[in-house]
Structures are given as structure tokens and as C-alpha cells.
């Protein structure tokens, strides 16, 4: 009887270890891939063409309005300043002009840094920082980075998290009071 009990115990332990390893592999390797869907921008946008070939700067399109609010991603109003008709040779541009400018429809760009409704981020207050301290340096990129959408929350994987905001505020001696960032 006692011998039998002993073997039963070890078999259970082995099964536990195997199960544990399986869960670890599933949780660390498989799940993160399953959690995010990989999306592309509706129009393959090349910052390189605009910056290097056309000599635009960041604030040609991403600028502050007169009241200090931030334009963020440009709308058709800005883009059609040059793209009211097809001006280049790329397919992407032709598609943009035909499907969005001529139909007077805004491009549903995927915003890598989209914040929840209860967050108020002021670009103006963060103006002394370089854009690339928070945003990826896309100025020389020919292709827009992949967009990873969290399937559960619907937010972008790249969105800045609250702990990142708090850490930078603390390091720079800026208040971390709730209302500084929340609305």
C-alpha cells in the first residue's frame, strides 16, 4: 500500500511541473501574440518622402493652433494643400487622392498614442521636449510602423501608460496630482 502511494505522489508532481511549464510557455510566448492584432495604416504613408524629398519639417503638418491646442495628425484640410490632385508617382498617393480627398472623407489613421477619454494630454506643456522622446523617430522611415491593437481593450500597444507619465513627472519635479492629467 505504502509503495503504491509513493509512486502516485511522484507522478502527480511530474504532471504539475509539466502543466506549469506549459502554462508558462503559453502565457509568455503564445498569449502576447494572440492578444494583439497587427494592423497597417489605411494608406502606406512615407515620412521620408515628405521630409527628405520635399523638405518639410515636423511642424509643417503637426502644428499648434492659435489657442495652444495641438493639431496632431493632419486632416484633409492640410493634406489637400498639396494633394488636391495627384502630384507624385506612388500608388498610395493616388489612392489617397481618389478615395479620400475627392470623396471629401477623412482618413481613419491609426493613432499609435491614442489615450483613453479620461486623459488630458497637453502637447503645449511638453513642447520643450523633443518629439522623439515619446514618439518613434519616423522622419526617416519610408514605411509607417506596424500598429498593434490590444484585442481586449482596443487600445494601441504603444500607447503611453500611466506609470510612464508618472515617472517622468516625478523625475522632473512636476506635480503628479490627479487633475494634472485626468478630466
Amino acid at each position, binding site marked *: 500500500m505504502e509503495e503504491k502511494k509513493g509512486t502516485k505522489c511522484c507522478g502527480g508532481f511530474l504532471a504539475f511541473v509539466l502543466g506549469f511549464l506549459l502554462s508558462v510557455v503559453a502565457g509568455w510566448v503564445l498569449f502576447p501574440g494572440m492578444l494583439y492584432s497587427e494592423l497597417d495604416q489605411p494608406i502606406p504613408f512615407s515620412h521620408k518622402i515628405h521630409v527628405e524629398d520635399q523638405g518639410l519639417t515636423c511642424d509643417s503638418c503637426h502644428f499648434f493652433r492659435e*489657442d*495652444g491646442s495641438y493639431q496632431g495628425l493632419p486632416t484633409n484640410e492640410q493634406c489637400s494643400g498639396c494633394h488636391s490632385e495627384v502630384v507624385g508617382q506612388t500608388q498610395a498617393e493616388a489612392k489617397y487622392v481618389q478615395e479620400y480627398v475627392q470623396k471629401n472623407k477623412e482618413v481613419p489613421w491609426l493613432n499609435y498614442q491614442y489615450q*483613453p477619454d479620461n486623459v488630458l494630454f*497637453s502637447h503645449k*506643456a511638453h513642447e520643450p521636449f523633443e518629439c522623439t522622446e515619446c514618439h518613434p523617430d519616423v522622419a526617416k522611415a519610408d514605411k509607417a510602423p506596424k500598429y498593434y491593437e490590444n484585442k481586449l481593450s482596443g487600445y494601441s500597444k504603444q500607447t503611453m501608460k500611466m506609470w510612464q507619465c508618472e515617472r517622468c513627472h516625478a523625475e522632473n519635479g512636476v*506635480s503628479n*496630482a*490627479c487633475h494634472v492629467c*485626468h478630466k
Partner: protein
Amino acid sequence: MHAKEFKIRWGMVIDVDKCTGCGACMVACQVENNIAPVTPEVDAWAGVAYDASNKLRTLNWLTVYEINNKKAFPEYEVAYMPRPCMQCASPACVPVCPVVATDKNEEGGIVSQIYPRCIGCRYCMAACPYHARYFNWFDPTWPAGMAKALSPSTSTRPRGVVEKCNFCHTRFQQAKDKARQEGGDPNSLADGAYNTACAEVCPSGAILFGDLNNPAHKVHALAHSKHSFRLLERLGLGPQVYYYSKREWVHRLGDNYLPNEKKA
């Protein structure tokens, strides 16, 4: 509790003698802060089950109270008192919150309320002597199409959390951004650069808003006037909302005075 000191103290002076009780401030507040009007629910059996006339269903950050001097005509007088959150110097609601969803810690002295953090225990509502806090018993519902016209300056609140007036706090942020854009100092805004929706809309100019600590702001002098008083001042919470009236009986209704007691 020791009150925190702030360089800027946003406050309000409400001239009770000028207020006509029109309620425009309440409407402006609802629009600015995405407070849902109660959508009537129609029941197949009973007809309209409830609408906004059911005051158990309504919610206002700012409420206009009507008071009178309890005298017969021709001495009868009436007055209206708009009641926002008082943004007390030492708020009763803040220390009772078990999850720090409400705090008074930002320059300007506005008592914050963070909805996703609130667990809906309603201790703060029990603590607030001004009844300035409201609980969402139901999810907000907007009439068809109105949800598209929501203001981006305030996040909407779900069922189960407490909310209250925050002096249109996003306008404060926007005023600071504008000051930065124009090369000014965001920490010393000019009088009127930051104004709440209720003060902006008030047709008789009864609600004035500004920095109580800044002598260049109109509210500074008015708050120190002998005609100014605060609601339940003797509780010692130090409200940042002042009322202004030249009528003695209005002053007496601002606190619990005994019938023969002289007002200090």
C-alpha cells in the same frame, strides 16, 4: 485637518441679489460636462415609466436653490442660490475616500474626482455638507443622435461612480495652453482667461470666477467685501465659493443661526 496652501485659489463669487434663478448656469454646466438629460423610458404597459421630472433620476453638478424670507406679502422676498462644488480649503470628502479617487492636491485648489478610480462607496457624499456630490445610479443615456454632440472636455461617467463639479477643469488646462502659446505665464492667468461655463453663460453676471489670491482678479475684492459670506462657514471647511448679498436675511440663511443669535 490642516488645509493645504496654494498660490492660486480658484474661486467664485455669486451675487445672490443679481441671480434671477433662470437656470442657464445649470444648462451650461450640463452641456460642458456631458451630464446626460434623462431619456424618458417608455414602458409598453405603463406608458412613460419615468422622465426627467423624476428627481431620483436626475443629476446636476450645479443646482439652483430657491430661498425666501418666510414673511407674508408685501414683505415677502425670494432669492436664488446657485450651488456648485465649494472646492473647500479642507474638504470633508477627501479624507474619507478609501481609494484616493478624490483629492485636493493640484495648484489652483480644485478638488479632483477621478471616475475610473471611484468604487462608489459614497462616503464622500455622506461627508459633504453641501450635497455637491452625485452618484450615478444608472448608466447615462442620451437621446438618439445626441451622443455625437458630447463635449471632448469631460469624460463620461458610467453607473456606479460619484461625480461633482470641478470648475470646468479642462478650461483651466486650455487657458494654460493658450497662455503658453502666446508666450505668457500659465501660472498667472489674466482675469477671465479661465472662466467656468456657468459664469460665462450667466445673463445677469451674477456668477464671477477668478483667482481669490490674485488682487488683479475681480473676485479677490468681492470675496473680502463685508457683503460676502460662505455657506455653513462655521463648519470650518473653508469653501472657495462666496455668496454676495446686501440683504441680512440671505446672510442668515447661509448658516445655522439661532433665532436670536447676532450674525458675527
